[in-house]
């Protein structure tokens, strides 16, 4: 049924293009992501976020062929969203409920009520938020908020996690913590980041430029190419 997933291709893009207002944002993107952890790098406006959003159907290609976990985002959007978790840059926009416990509960709607409270406690503890389940989420620090946002996504156990610059707003310690968490996941990871140190720790890297893929391959080499292109 899903030959691509079976052969380990997480994402397969063939000549994918995206247009907005008649202007191309992505043009002829052809990549196959087979590694467990792929970094996506490139300049502001190069199309990284647009690419990331393709992967869970937040945005649809206007041309080309796209398969994510073997699914067609245009036809199997719902199944895709269940299997792909998305982490945004700004945790304020993705914490949807007034308190951490309620936000986690929202992700755990499928879990029986009795089990849920226990699961929530466990997750809060795991993410360093023990005892903060009932305080307003707006009272958490920046780092704690991003950890909560992450927890609310990961608790659904997605097969593919897409993260769009999840560490940008964090300090050294929190960035490291969130970075370690993401890189340590068992699921697949597509990590959009400006933090080249983090990108270097992935297994594969893709460099975007002006809506095209400029390079893909060993993170160290791709990062060098990016640095060179900026000089």
């Amino acid at each position, binding site marked *: 049924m899903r030959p691509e997933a079976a052969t380990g291709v997480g994402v397969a893009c063939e000549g994918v293009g995206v247009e907005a207002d008649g202007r191309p944002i992505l043009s002829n993107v052809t990549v196959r992501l087979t590694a467990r952890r792929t970094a996506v790098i490139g300049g502001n406006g190069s199309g990284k976020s647009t690419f990331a959003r393709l992967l869970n159907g937040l945005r649809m290609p206007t041309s080309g062929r796209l398969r994510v976990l073997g699914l067609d985002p245009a036809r199997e959007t719902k199944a895709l969203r269940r299997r792909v*978790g998305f982490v*945004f840059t700004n945790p304020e926009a*993705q914490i949807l409920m007034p308190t951490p416990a309620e936000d986690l509960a929202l992700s755990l709607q499928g879990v029986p009520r009795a089990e849920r409270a226990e699961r929530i406690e466990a997750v809060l503890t795991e993410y360093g938020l023990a005892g903060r389940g009932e305080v307003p989420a707006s009272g958490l620090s920046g780092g704690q908020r991003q950890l909560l946002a992450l927890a609310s996504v990961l608790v659904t156990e997605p097969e593919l996690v897409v993260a769009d610059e999840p560490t940008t707003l964090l300090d050294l310690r929190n960035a490291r913590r969130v970075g370690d968490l993401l890189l340590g996941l068992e699921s697949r990871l597509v990590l959009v980041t400006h933090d080249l140190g983090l990108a270097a720790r992935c297994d594969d890297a893709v460099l975007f430029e002006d809506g095209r893929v400029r390079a893909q391959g060993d993170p160290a080499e791709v990062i060098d190419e990016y640095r060179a292109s900026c000089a």
Partner: protein
Amino acid sequence: MISLYRPGTGLLHRLPAGAKLAGLVVCALALSLWRPEPAGMLAVVLAVSAMYPVAGLPVVALGQTWWRLRWIVLVLGGALWLFTGADTALVNTGRVVALLLLADLVTRTTRMGDLLAVLERVLRPLRRFRVDAAAVALTISLTIAMVPVIAGLAEQVRDAQRARGTRLGVRAALPLLVLTMKHADDVGDALVARGMVR
């Protein structure tokens, strides 16, 4: 945002939310149809006030509510006296005060979640008109979560203006509006990505 509910175990606290709401509606109707003597209305106001301690609410709560109503009592009472005479003034002011006290009693003794549940129950029959009670509940929680975020945005904008030494008056609301609408788009994306809505 802190709810106006005050935890307790009194009689009113234990009554189901639906019953309290129904009671409030009945009282409101009765009070607006009934034309008593001033003495009767005075008795009603005293009786409603007496329900505060009966419900296990501290006397301070009663004092607070009365204190908040002081202007209504004085101004409304004064105006009515002027236009309609002393008796009617007493009855009408008493009616407003009694109703406000009653509503305040229900608000103080009913948990937010219980009121939400009643709201959901009331909305359920509207399903035929494509009103999704669960979506309403989700939206209410979402709004509660967004209030501090928008307040934070308002603070950012105010600071930026002060820092630039400009006074924009109402135009100050423009950057706030832009930020708010952009934020809404981000939240919309998160709702979709987290599978809450289509």
